[in-house]
């Protein structure tokens, strides 16, 4: 069957005129190396998860940070593709410095949890909170097998620190979203769900099956 960008775009809710870079890929910048054919194939063939990328303390993000976010999303797409899972629609949201009430500056894991408690994007996509400051050894935090009712009790999103390294942030985004989609930590140092970075970023078929069964994952 011939791949159709229009059909793939329709699957993630796009119609009429849209920007391939900004709407179909969900990029904030204009990165090179994107393959429309690959993304079209993935969105058409795989089950998919949509993501809300929420910049906390938005005024503080630089162009380099936005590039890092775009690269992290692409890295996540590539890692998830090995288990036939697509990252579909990526929407961007922002919380201003003033509204963030200090949570642009995460000092501990409970503050990260509070952040996801206080804010919710009212749709059926995974909420990813992007912060520029996360003190301590933690680099990201997420609920494990997170709820699809984002009004439910407990942590209902993932928090990812922008590390100044696209490679690292890509691993962290894929890892934390993997938690939300049902994955726990593993000891295998080559697996994405090893609790430290860098790791090999691999996923097993069993992990893929778990992720594809999550209630946020759509056909």
């Amino acid at each position, binding site marked *: 069957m011939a791949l159709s960008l229009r059909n793939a775009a329709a699957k993630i809710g796009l119609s009429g005129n849209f920007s391939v870079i900004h709407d179909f890929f969900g990029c904030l910048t204009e990165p090179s190396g994107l393959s429309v054919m690959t993304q079209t194939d993935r969105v058409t063939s795989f089950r998919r998860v949509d993501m809300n990328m929420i910049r906390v303390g*938005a005024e503080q993000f630089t162009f380099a940070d936005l590039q890092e976010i775009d690269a992290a999303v692409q890295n996540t797409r590539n890692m998830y593709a090995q288990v036939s899972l697509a990252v579909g629609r990526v929407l961007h949201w922002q919380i201003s*410095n003033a509204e963030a009430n200090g949570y642009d*500056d995460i*000092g*501990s894991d409970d503050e990260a949890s509070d952040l996801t408690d206080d804010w919710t994007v009212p749709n059926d996509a995974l909420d990813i909170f992007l912060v520029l400051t996360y003190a301590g050894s933690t*680099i990201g935090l997420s609920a494990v097998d997170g709820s699809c009712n984002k009004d439910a*009790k407990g942590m209902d999103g993932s928090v990812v620190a922008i590390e100044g390294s696209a490679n690292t942030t890509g691993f962290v985004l894929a890892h934390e979203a993997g938690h939300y989609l049902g994955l726990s930590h593993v000891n295998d140092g080559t697996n994405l769900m090893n609790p430290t970075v860098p790791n090999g970023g691999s996923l097993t078929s069993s992990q893929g099956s778990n992720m594809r069964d999550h209630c946020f994952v759509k056909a």
Partner: protein
Amino acid sequence: MSVDIKAFSGALTASTLSKLHAVAIGESAELPRMRVIASLPLLDANARPNLVKIAGDTNVPIRLRKVAIHSLGRLKDRPLDVIQRHALDSDVGIAAAAVKILGRVGNADSLSTLERVRSDSILKPRVAFAAALISHRFNLPGHELPSVKSATYLDLPRATLSVKARTTNAEEDATIRSTLAQHALALPTALATWDLECGKKRWALVLDKSLLSPWKPDQFATKKQYLGQLATRNHVTGTYAPGLAFLATGMGSGRLEVGMYRSSGQLIFGGEGHIEGEVFRFSMRATDLPGASATVLEGSYGPSGLDLKISSAVNRTRPALQPSLTKIS
């Protein structure tokens, strides 16, 4: 998830620590710089000079300087004078980070610095809470928190959950102490800790032991006090984060106001306590904040120990004041 700095460095020899410091000050890019700056207080007792340098270097990106200020607050020999100086920084992000840390680790002298922080819509509430934390820790006049009576509370819960409260064993006690010590938090020297289990969640109630032994309940009715923290437990790692600060303000006549506050200064649980003979009783309700669920915490402490009950709605409600997110293209 964390960066495996130990795997990078192997045993933390002088040579590997030197490599980490090179990353921290920007002379090497072998590891993400922010994570190294954030981890240095846990890895090297002599991290202070470079952290001071990074925090004060205007050529270093603001977010790295903010992490360095957090790290200064985590040091055992934390340089309050440096943190106080950054509270007066012209950059609001730097000042806000320093104010937050000062509230947690500052002393009576820090109050005069906080009074000089510029009045700003972002900084003002943070300064107010930081000053209130210090004034409660040292029972100093002024810098009062808004009365818990003025807060809006959720309705009484429709369902109840049971909570198991028990004193921690030695191993748990060590974990609580060691992991909380990794945060910028000026905990009392002697702690009394309880493990609280409610459904799948666990917390540690960490109180200032000197308030409990010798037990003089009348002291609560007349003083401002920082009682301790309701620390949250990470069920994956088993570590603890500071959670909520537990503050009390004596109102006289055997009565006091009690509140549990987030590090942002938001009141999460508020209510009253009173002294009945040798027993201190309190009751707190959840405030009407986004993500909260109707909850009542009731407890007592006396010669027979701690008794705690939690009644909570099974589901939380998302109040109408849910913040609006600004979508961008």
